[in-house]
């Protein structure tokens, strides 16, 4: 059997794209951590899953860099008055996201051109 390292590739791809995924979801509207994690899982149809040990340190990193800003919001409806920390996009975050999207698109196209060459 030919040895493959699909898990390693998968891990590296996730590592390289997670910031982009989180920023993209928060750009739409302010979201709390659970919502971000769930949407990543739903929209990737289960391919990408972020555990709390990965998601929250990443959120704190993005917040520390000033790309997102966290704010506690009281939930007066359901949840028995429990408050949640919502993250919203900052102006710096929008610029970074635009640059990361562009880089990612060019990278995906370049990889595709190499891995799936069109017949001449």
């Amino acid at each position, binding site marked *: 059997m030919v040895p493959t390292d699909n898990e390693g590739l998968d891990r590296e791809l996730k590592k390289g794209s997670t910031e982009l995924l989180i920023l993209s979801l928060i750009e739409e509207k302010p979201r709390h951590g659970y919502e971000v994690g769930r949407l990543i899982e739903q929209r990737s149809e289960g391919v990408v899953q972020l*555990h*709390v*040990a990965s998601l929250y*340190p*990443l959120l704190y990193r993005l917040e*520390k860099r000033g790309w997102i800003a966290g704010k506690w919001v009281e939930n007066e409806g359901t949840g028995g008055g429990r408050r*949640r*920390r919502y993250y919203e996009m900052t102006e710096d975050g929008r610029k970074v996201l635009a640059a990361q999207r562009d880089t990612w698109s060019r990278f995906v196209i370049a990889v595709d051109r190499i891995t799936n060459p069109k017949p001449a």
Partner: protein
Amino acid sequence: MMVPDWKTLLKERLAGLEVHPARAMEIIEEVAADLEDKYTRRVDRGEDPEAAKADLLAELGAPGEFEQRVLAELGQFTPRPPEQEFGGPGKVLENLGQDLRYGFRMLRKSPWFSLVAMMTLALGIGASTAVFSAVYGVLWKPLPFPEPNRLVFFWGTFSGGQSAATSPPDFLDYRARTTTFEALEASFAHSGRVPTTLTGSGEPARLHSAAVSAGYFKMLGVQPILGRNFSSAEERDGGNGVVI
């Protein structure tokens, strides 16, 4: 079904989270809410509660993994000495100014609440001051004489225990025989509220007076502003009354 207390579980599990204590509490609250939602969703879907709980705790990774990742992003917290924490005297004054301005803005923002709060405080402080003034005047305020702690007041009693005045002959006997007190003197109207009318030159004046024994002022350690104290000869029965 026993719902896990995620906050308590996380507090135990993340005891080594060496970020600022307030930040650590926020992180625990935030992650606990996440795990609680996931737990509810999984149990509602029919998963075994214990298995769901174990699975979710495993999301934190190996012991210490979550803490290390958070510390890598936020940096380790080391408490600063107080002078650095508060930024020296200049910074303290600046902070005080900010706090006062903030407090004033909050008061203006809710004028009715502020008014009720101020009235409550005013009533409370007024009542406390009144009670303290009364207690101070009655119990704590020293008498206006030297060594007031050496002054005692005593009186005679009837057989039933009722207090009663001491007769002049008894007083003279007590005074002659006392070895306990340095001086023993009498006031024949100890309340000091005997109304008296002073006449002579000019308009009559209403005064309060008391008849006392000759050594009364000497015992109290006070001197008249004008004139002299009573002499023992002036205490004699049948002698002329002398007024200070």
